[in-house]
């Protein structure tokens, strides 16, 4: 067992992936000498060399587009997009190329590319540094999308994503980079594309992913003091969704609240609400509720505490669910 921050767990996972497979190549802005703006790639260029940890020119389409070519040559590129809001220059390559080349080539050209994106708010940043663009990618056929919430998942899921033959957009909760936990570096991890119950409960099922898992767990803690038992599911995988644990839970609780930082309208919560309503219709005691960001431009950082779902907004939604 090792005590690791989420950021260090990612770093350790990257190191392990590079040791395990010489075809793994890291590319991104400032990831070499600097070790990345969040230091996730710290020390890797020094140990693996400039051919495997590449400081790229400042152009995101270039990063992803050249990763496509490297993948065609048999490499496994792991690219870092410096911040969530900077992924859009690469959006064309991700959506029209990375996502489609496997289908277009009938499997002759697999795209084992991992696209790492630090996402979400809460760090007091300037604009384009606090966004949650996961729904764009989850909506894109051909991509797989995951979000990690804790150091153990960071360590394991990153290695699993890199080893996976399909392109994986890998969301990292940047405000949780410094959260610490015990990580068993020898444990057998659960499958990459699986959701997990992280706290058992009977009254309401709370669904969250990425940075909101911690918030949901805090809400469950607070609810317990008030005599309410909340079950918390960490979705972990956003595409494909793994709703079996969710449905099992909702059939017991009859109530479901989905939490994410992204704007509520047409966010992941909308899809989950539709599916849970369809699969658990006869068990539901209340409509599936969503707690998300408001449908506004991500606000200046002085307002982000108001914008981001927090413990109280989650509990307020739990109250509404219980009120039906």
């Amino acid at each position: 067992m090792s005590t690791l921050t989420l950021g260090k767990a990612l770093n350790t996972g990257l190191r392990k992936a590079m040791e395990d497979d010489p075809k793994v190549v890291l590319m991104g802005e400032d990831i070499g000498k600097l070790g990345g703006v969040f230091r996730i790639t710290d020390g890797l260029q020094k140990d693996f060399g400039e051919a495997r940890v590449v400081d790229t020119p400042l152009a995101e389409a270039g990063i992803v587009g050249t990763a496509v070519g490297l993948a065609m040559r048999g490499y496994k590129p792991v690219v870092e997009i410096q911040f969530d809001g900077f992924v859009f220059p690469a959006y064309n390559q991700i959506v029209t190329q990375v996502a489609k080349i496997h289908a277009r080539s009938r499997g002759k050209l697999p795209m084992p590319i991992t696209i790492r994106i630090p996402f979400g708010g809460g760090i007091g940043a300037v604009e384009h540094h606090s966004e949650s663009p996961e729904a764009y990618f989850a909506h894109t056929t051909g991509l797989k999308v995951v979000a990690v919430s804790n150091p153990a998942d960071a360590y394991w899921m990153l290695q699993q994503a890199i080893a996976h033959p399909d392109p994986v957009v890998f969301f990292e909760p940047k405000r949780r980079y410094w959260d610490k936990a015990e990580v068993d570096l020898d444990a057998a991890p659960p499958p990459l594309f699986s959701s997990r119950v992280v706290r058992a409960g009977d009254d309401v099922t709370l669904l969250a992913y990425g940075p909101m898992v911690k918030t949901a767990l805090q809400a469950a803690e607070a609810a317990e003091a008030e005599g309410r038992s909340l079950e918390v599911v960490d979705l972990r995988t956003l595409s494909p969704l793994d709703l079996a644990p969710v449905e099992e839970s909702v059939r017991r609780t009859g109530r479901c609240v989905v939490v994410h930082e992204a704007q509520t309208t047409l966010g992941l919560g909308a899809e989950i609400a539709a599916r849970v309503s369809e699969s658990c219709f006869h068990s539901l005691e209340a409509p599936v509720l969503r707690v998300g960001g408001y449908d506004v431009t991500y606000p200046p950082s002085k307002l982000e505490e108001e914008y981001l779902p927090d413990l109280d907004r989650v509990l307020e939604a739990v109250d509404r669910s219980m009120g039906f």
Partner: protein
Amino acid sequence: MTAVREMVDPVPGAAAPHLPAQPDLVQLLTPEGERVEHPEYSLDVTDEELRSLYRDLALVRRWDVEATALQRQGELGIWASLQGQEAAQIGAGRALGEADMAFPTYREHGVAWTRGVDPLDVISLFRGNDLGGWDPVATRFNLYTVVIGAQCLHATGYAMGIQRDTADAAAIAFLGDGATSQGEVNEAFIWAATFDAPVVFFCQNNQYAISVPIERQSKVPLFQRAAGFGFPGVRVDGNDVLAVLAVTRAALARAREGSGPTFIEAFTYRMGAHTTSDDPTRYRLADELEEWKLRDPIARLKAHLSRSGKADAEFFAGVDAEGDELAARIRKGTLEMPDPAGTEMFDHVYAEQTEEIAAQRAAFLAYQEGFEK
């Protein structure tokens, strides 16, 4: 020719003596079919090779004519004609080595031909039977890329892989004049330059991006742009298969030896429409096409072969007959091409199928079977 077009000195060759010559244009075969020397680019080519180059040019044009006819008869959804660009494509394609990898746009039927891609596999894409059509790994000819310019980054990344493999190979990206305005293409230039990637950017400047003339893409001749990125740019007569072959060979050799990228501007003309959905009479004058017909890439090599006695009437008749056989095979193969099974759309979205798509596939099958009962 309107005055504005003089900016890029559009008409190469002696066939239009009233227009300015292009001092920078690499040419080894004049529009009249006269073999000329160039101080930097020499080409040793046997008579046999010359005849086989002619054969390639003539056969891809025959394929192109047949495909256009098939589209007009409703057998293809669309066709992008390469007419006028045969020399640029055959010259570049024939310069490639076995280990090199080509990244085409959607008009490189001539390059496909040189890579051994079956014309029917290309037809299957335009007929709507397939999203790709051929095996890009086996043919070392990537699938067509329709989003303009995206393939330039793929070629550059692939070249970075070649570097890491320390392989004796190069990548070549095909692009058009319009693509040079794309950000991704300019990013590819920067990447290739700063990493000395073994990649050749082969731009067929056919003067139009659908309807928009080159003047709207560039204020300078395209080949001059390369200097700003830090690698050589060459303008070659794109209707001269010998010059294209020589220039592309040199650029590929330079890439393979580790000296980095080259930008080749093959100066040519799209004699047909952009695609079968286009109407070029809306944006260009008939006399322009007539000027370019004088520089036809196939007539020029034919003139050279005939006048020099390197090929006789029997040879040309043989190629014509071979062309007709090819056209007949393409026609028959197109008409007999089976429609894809409906389930195919579910089968290759991912390397590891998801439960969601597997369930949708099963539901689709059940739904279809419901009709059959």
